[in-house]
């Protein structure tokens, strides 16, 4: 990356995220590659039992304990900054964390946007490497990416799924406002306030650009991924690490599933309900259909290669798509067969 350019969050454009319950079973999938390169994991052991007790959910009571905490915090920070990255996907600026030596990166679904998107991954020293988005769980706002260049990359291990506790001390990093040349990932230390299947809530303050960055325990293991905030400074929500552990295979394969409650996929057409085919009476102004070039009178015959029957079956097929997804639309315009690419929009349910 050009060292002089300043990257700021452009805000806008990015779609959806929110959290809904998902049944989670803990899977002990090991992501950490053992063998040569294991020394690249940023995990930092907590030596003293007294210190562990504090970090696990207690609080310091005197200056000596503050010094112990500080010594460990300083050491931890020098390591975890190395695996925090900035991510740029189209207009979207966010953050991520490298979690394997070969360059898998955890981020937020709303940063990645959709699978198979080219991304710029920005290392703390400002170097840019190419990456690609893989799978997303939009319901929980979990996203996976991979650095395209060869490693080995410094990485953070994942904490076991259900270990994190209310009151536990934690550390968040990321790039608030988007990556800024000359500014290392921004460290915040706080504690877990609420923990449930949908989110880990902490008082590590987050803001636009932090999405996708890591929430780590005080050993430097990922317990969450920055996702969204609420009105108060103590309302900062992170995707639980379980969301990545339990759906790892689907994420690696590049599957995208789930949706925000209250938000659904949107095409934006009016059809003739009595017709035996999916004839479009008109595309709505400004809709994804209009933008893709669908015209009044077109008859849609296939979406994503799947045959469309009547208008109701078109609605069903669209219902199975995800906002932000790019789909191929085949239609008949008079005698002519036309193929278009269309990006599915969003609407409130």
């Amino acid at each position: 990356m050009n060292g002089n350019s300043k990257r700021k969050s452009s805000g806008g454009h990015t779609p959806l995220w929110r959290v809904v319950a998902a049944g989670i079973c803990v899977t002990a999938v090991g992501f950490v590659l053992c063998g040569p390169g294991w020394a690249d994991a940023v995990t930092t052991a907590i030596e003293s039992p007294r210190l562990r007790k504090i970090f696990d959910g207690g609080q310091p009571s005197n200056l000596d304990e503050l010094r112990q905490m500080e010594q460990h915090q300083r050491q931890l920070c020098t390591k975890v900054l190395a695996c925090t990255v900035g991510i740029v996907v189209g207009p979207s600026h966010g953050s991520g964390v490298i979690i394997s030596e070969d360059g898998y990166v955890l981020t937020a679904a709303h940063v990645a946007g959709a699978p198979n998107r080219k991304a710029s991954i920005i290392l703390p020293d400002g170097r840019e490497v190419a990456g690609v988005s893989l799978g997303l769980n939009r319901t929980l706002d979990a996203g996976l990416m991979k650095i395209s260049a060869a490693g080995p990359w410094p990485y953070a291990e994942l904490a076991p799924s259900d270990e994190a506790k209310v009151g536990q001390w934690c550390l968040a990093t990321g790039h608030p406002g988007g990556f800024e040349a000359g500014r290392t990932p921004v460290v915040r230390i706080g504690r877990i306030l609420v923990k449930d299947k949908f989110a880990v809530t902490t008082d590590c303050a987050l803001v636009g650009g932090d999405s996708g960055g890591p929430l780590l325990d005080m050993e430097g293991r990922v317990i969450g991924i920055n996702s969204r905030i609420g009105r108060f400074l103590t309302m900062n929500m992170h995707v639980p690490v379980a969301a990545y552990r339990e759906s790892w295979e689907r994420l690696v394969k590049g599957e995208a599933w789930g949706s925000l409650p209250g938000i659904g996929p949107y095409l934006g057409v009016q059809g003739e309900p009595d017709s035996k085919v999916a004839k479009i009476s008109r595309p709505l102004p400004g809709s994804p259909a209009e933008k893709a070039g669908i015209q009044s009178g077109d008859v849609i015959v296939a979406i994503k290669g799947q045959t469309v029957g009547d208008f109701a079956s078109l609605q069903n097929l669209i219902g199975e798509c995800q906002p932000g997804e790019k789909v191929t639309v085949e239609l008949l315009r008079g005698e002519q067969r036309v193929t278009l690419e269309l990006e599915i929009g969003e609407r409130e349910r």
Partner: protein
Amino acid sequence: MRLRPSCWLAVLLLSTVAQAADVTERDAYVVKNAFRDVVSTPAQSTVRILCDGRRAALGTIVGAEGLILTKASELSGSIACQLFDGRRLEAKVIGVSEDDDLALLKVKADHLPVIHWSEVAPPPVGSWLATPGLETVPLSIGVVSVAARVVEPRMPALGVIIEDGDKGPVVREILPRSGAEKAGLKPNDVITQIDDKKVATRNSLVQSIRGHRPGETVRVILLRDGKPLTVEVELLDVTELANGETFQEDVNGRLSKRRTGFPLALQHDTVLQPNQCGGPVVDLDGNVVGINIARASRVASYALPAAVVRPVVEKLTSGELVAAKAAN
């Protein structure tokens, strides 16, 4: 719920999540209490700055003969200092460094306890910082988030699209959520003067605004339907204006008006209100590593490092830098 396009991370949850018990927060009283030995000495050198009786900032005793350092841009009207021992003393501004946003005040007192500056490099990322108040526990605590770096000044804007006209620069459009909108500027207003500078062209208007910073308020004299009108307009950051990110106190909390343009800033995650800036921030040895100079964002507070502040204090004390402008 409609998502605001400019805040794709932010959701304004009118949340039903119950506020967690205070004891499990980082800033819980029990945690701050662990810092009592850290702040016991520097608290005695911390003062509260009152402007027209209102809490405006904190300050630091830098001279035993009654010299107090604070954040210049928070000062206005009649200034008083409330000391740790409870005394409230009238204060005069005797010097201002606009580059650093620091002001030196003089109160009628002697043998005041002066702070101890840290003599070493600023603490590394992850280090504890405590902000003393006028009490036995810190006002607020946090950790160093980013090592000291330059924070560039930002371009200011009224929030208007201007064209040259016969009578002078004419307002064509008002940008939403701008100082101009808030002040009630309207299309076809002809701007004739900014503060004491007459402006005859769009260019001279732009030049005149460029001499200011975001967060400052300027007096705008204009003609509306031929009649002169004077309004006060707050200048905002032109980038924030373009991104629709202005006036977001509901999510970000209140921020300092002057929060950019510092020669060096140590960024930390201490939660501070704007009127809690201007005072010392200390390390675990109780030494002052910097002066809290701004609440910069939802996630950041800035401190001017001691190594930057101390030479400025020298200059202000020696009279090299006199009051550059009357407190606005």
